[in-house]
């Protein structure tokens, strides 16, 4: 930040950009213009008063968009659901507090599939977000707003949440960089739970360095989240070095659209040319990953979403003349179709007599996957594959067939089930539609992940900004 170009001017330009393009993209649920401008003026004042850069913050003035399932104090947080359409959180999520402390400016809340359940951002009460590369196509999901807003330059960086690929899928579809950190690396306090044991908040940016910058702000142990991991808060750096052992996951490539497979093989060639030792490898248990993932995610979500009974917070619906169970039923009829489907399926797999058959079995599969990936990551520093097995597709193409929709998460759920970090970076285009490369590393090995991603990014030089 310098004095020639003030934070206020920058934020004003961002707000103008949103004003200009968001009609086409529909990435934002709420734009907090006044709040953002006020923060910008505060930063400008600090700079004028000669405060040191470190006191102004490492992200001073940076415009950030927040997926609308992350709580922002005093700013409506809806989960794109009728259930929370009037919900104003009384507290900031830990990540929001950290970003604000570092000077980042929240410009607004971003669209998503209702309660983050979906892969296209079509399941939102605020309508679908559209892909900035072609507005007839889905932007991916569930953090569709987070991916599209960054691609459309409506904000510099954004936060999404990734339960089964929800950050990486839109990053891939919108040709931006998206990270799912190691489980326990980033606090989930204030992230409205979909499936607690799988999800992490993750940053989206145009470049690896944007993502690293955000991670340096939001990572670390949090007393408000007992699943965060104790120890020193990491400081990630930007190093690209060629001495990386890269394993290409055969099963992922085989299952993908041939154009995408081709792109992943070229990526491997690029790594080789840059001095990495590359090899094809296999992960047998991958075929059970999707079933395990959906069983666990739906089970947890059925319980997580039980609290929405409209008694303590919610929307306007008078309980007059209802018996309490009838009122509960009436309230809960307001969930969208996909949410209802997951609550019902999740309740079923947890019900007595089925627990062992489904939930417990899914957990056993998860343990096997973890074993296999840990052993693979002894041989390789990183594993690569496609982020998505398909190219972005048109609206409505898969929405009526849940199984078809679930299938596209096949490559991303592995990292959620095993807890390892995974990043999606732009790898190329096919038919003018973006393709993402997925890179995975061992638990808490984000630095290695960033090294590999940076190495690839600096040589691949894939287009990031569509014309709008």
């Amino acid at each position, binding site marked *: 930040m310098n004095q020639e170009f003030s934070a206020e001017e920058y934020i004003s330009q961002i707000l103008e950009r949103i004003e200009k393009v968001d009609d086409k993209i529909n990435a934002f649920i709420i734009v907090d213009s006044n709040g953002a401008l006020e923060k910008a003026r505060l930063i400008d004042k600090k700079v004028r008063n000669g405060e040191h850069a470190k006191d102004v913050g490492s992200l001073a003035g940076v415009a950030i968009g927040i997926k609308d399932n*992350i*709580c922002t104090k005093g700013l409506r*947080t809806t*989960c794109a659901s009728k259930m*929370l359409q009037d*919900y104003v*959180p*009384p*507290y900031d*999520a830990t990540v929001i507090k950290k970003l604000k402390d570092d000077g980042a400016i929240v410009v607004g809340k971003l669209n998503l599939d209702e309660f983050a359940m979906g892969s296209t951002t079509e399941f939102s009460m605020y309508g679908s977000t559209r892909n900035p590369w072609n507005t007839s196509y889905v932007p991916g999901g569930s953090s569709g707003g987070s991916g599209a807003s960054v691609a459309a330059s409506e904000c510099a960086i954004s936060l999404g949440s990734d339960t089964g690929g929800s950050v990486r899928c839109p990053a891939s579809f919108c040709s931006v960089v998206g990270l799912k950190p190691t489980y326990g690396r980033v606090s*989930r*306090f*204030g*992230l*409205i*739970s979909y*499936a*607690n*044991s799988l999800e992490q908040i993750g940053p989206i940016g145009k470049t690896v360095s944007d993502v690293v910058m955000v991670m340096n702000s939001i990572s670390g142990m949090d*007393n*408000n*989240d*007992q*699943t965060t991991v104790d120890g020193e808060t990491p400081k990630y750096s930007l190093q690209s070095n060629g001495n990386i052992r890269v394993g290409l996951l055969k099963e992922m490539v085989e299952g993908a659209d041939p154009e995408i497979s081709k792109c992943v093989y070229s990526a491997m060639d690029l790594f080789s040319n840059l001095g990495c030792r590359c090899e094809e490898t296999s992960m047998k248990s991958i075929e059970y990953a999707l079933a395990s993932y959906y069983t666990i995610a739906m*089970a*947890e979500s*059925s*319980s997580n979403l*039980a*609290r929405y*009974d409209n*008694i*303590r*917070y919610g929307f306007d619906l008078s309980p007059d003349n209802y018996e*309490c*169970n009838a009122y*509960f039923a009436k309230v809960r009829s307001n969930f969208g179709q996909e949410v209802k489907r997951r609550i019902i399926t999740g*309740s079923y797999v*947890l*019900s*007595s007599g089925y*627990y062992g058959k489904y*939930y*417990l079995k899914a957990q056993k599969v998860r343990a096997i996957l973890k074993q296999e990936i840990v052993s693979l990551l002894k041989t390789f520093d990183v594993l690569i594959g496609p982020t998505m097995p398909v190219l972005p597709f048109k609206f409505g193409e898969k929405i009526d067939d849940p199984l078809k929709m679930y299938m596209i998460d096949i490559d991303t759920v592995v990292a959620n089930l095993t807890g390892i970090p995974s990043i999606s970076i732009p790898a190329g285009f096919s038919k003018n539609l973006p393709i993402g490369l997925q890179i995975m590393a061992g638990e808490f090995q984000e630095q290695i992940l960033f090294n590999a991603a940076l190495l690839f990014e600096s040589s691949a030089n894939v287009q990031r900004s569509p014309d709008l």
Partner: protein
Amino acid sequence: MLSGIKIGLEIHCQLTYLQTKLFCPCYSDYRFKTPNSNICPICYGHPGTLPLLNKDALEHASLLSNALGCKIPNEIIFYRKNYFYPDLPKNFQLTQYNAYGITSIGVDGKLEYGTDTTKSARIRRIQLEEDPGRLVYEDNSMGSNSFYTLIDYNRAGVSLVEIVTEPDFTTPKDVRIFLNKITSIVEHLRICDTRLEGAVRCDANVSIGEGKKVEIKNIGSFKEVEKALSYEITRQKTMSSREIEIKAETRHWDDARKITKQARVKETEEDYRYFPEPDIPTIVLENSFLLALKRKMPELPDERRRRFITTYELGDHVSQVLLDNKDLADFFESAIAIYPSPKAIANWIVSDLIKFINADDHNRSERNHHRSTSISGLKIEAKHIAELAKLVDQNIISRTTAKGFINQMIKTGEMPSQLLQKTNASKIDDKNIILDAIEIVFRDEKSAVNDARQNSKATNFLLGKIIHLTKGKVDPKIALDLINKKLFESA
């Protein structure tokens, strides 16, 4: 004929000595607060909040597990028990569950109870869980049929331990004795102030012979459990004798009418869809924790009772009565520290003071912070009983007077010596005064005096007259000596 009564218990104790709730920083002490003021985003179930386990609760629950002879597993896990009810902020309760592996804070314990023949009950498990909020019905007489119900979440998230026993009891009286012991144990561990309203609750299940098991819920206090069980046993026996089938059901104890009545029948069995809480990582209890726990164990009622018997030479019954109520035992030990006459002081407490304490039982609600030297609601302290025992031992006041003093002291808090001054109740031991009284009686009862010279029983008649004349203040031993002296002197 009918035989084999089996009773099992589910006892809930709030961990009232914890500063904060089980999963958030709100105060544990929710009583007498404005409704919905003792809450935070976590215990109110706001979206995005996560449970933060209170480590002290683990310690308190472990102390109880130890005291009840339970094994403490190395790995402790919390489960979600999913059901919809308006008093549950998250519509699931965080609790513990052993069906998928033993992970509750205690398991497989045993507790002996009773003094004469020693009985015991097996403890199936102890689990740590959160209390729900409180439902306040618009009009209590209408119960759950009232027009609306108010919800107060101040209690939501308070730590509870649930003690589940095997069906090892055969009489309601045994249950009462067992519950007294549990009360005394949690008091000695300083994990639950059982006098607080709602701090201890008990559900029971009863079956007779091959009959089905009936659950009794809504029993408001430990005292009511015995009554509820007696009623339920009589009901089941009557049904059996008329060959009416006893159904497996849940019945509610109606405190006002003193009967159990059928709870609303559910169409389907409740399915709680238990699964491990993902937001609380498995807690590994290291050996060091368990060793430290052993060191932290305070003296328990059984040890203390043995000490009372051997060190203070108290009888079995007296020791048991003192130990059933930790306050009494503490009171006793404070008093003998002031005046070391254990037997006398124990007797004053057990035979005289105790009736006032029991009478006062219903008025207890607020925590008494001076519990070691005084007894809740009464103005009497250890120093009062100590001084009283001393005055009796020194023959300064009679037992009758002492009893009268207790009546006074509990109300006014005056010391026995003050009362003595005020009423001048000092026992008459001045020989001249006694001789004066004897003179009068001998003059009025000439024939009795003659009889007494032949028959010692008549002497008691004379003594009675003298006691009457002195309004009971005369020292009977001195008076009797003087009477005998006078009788045979003049003979």
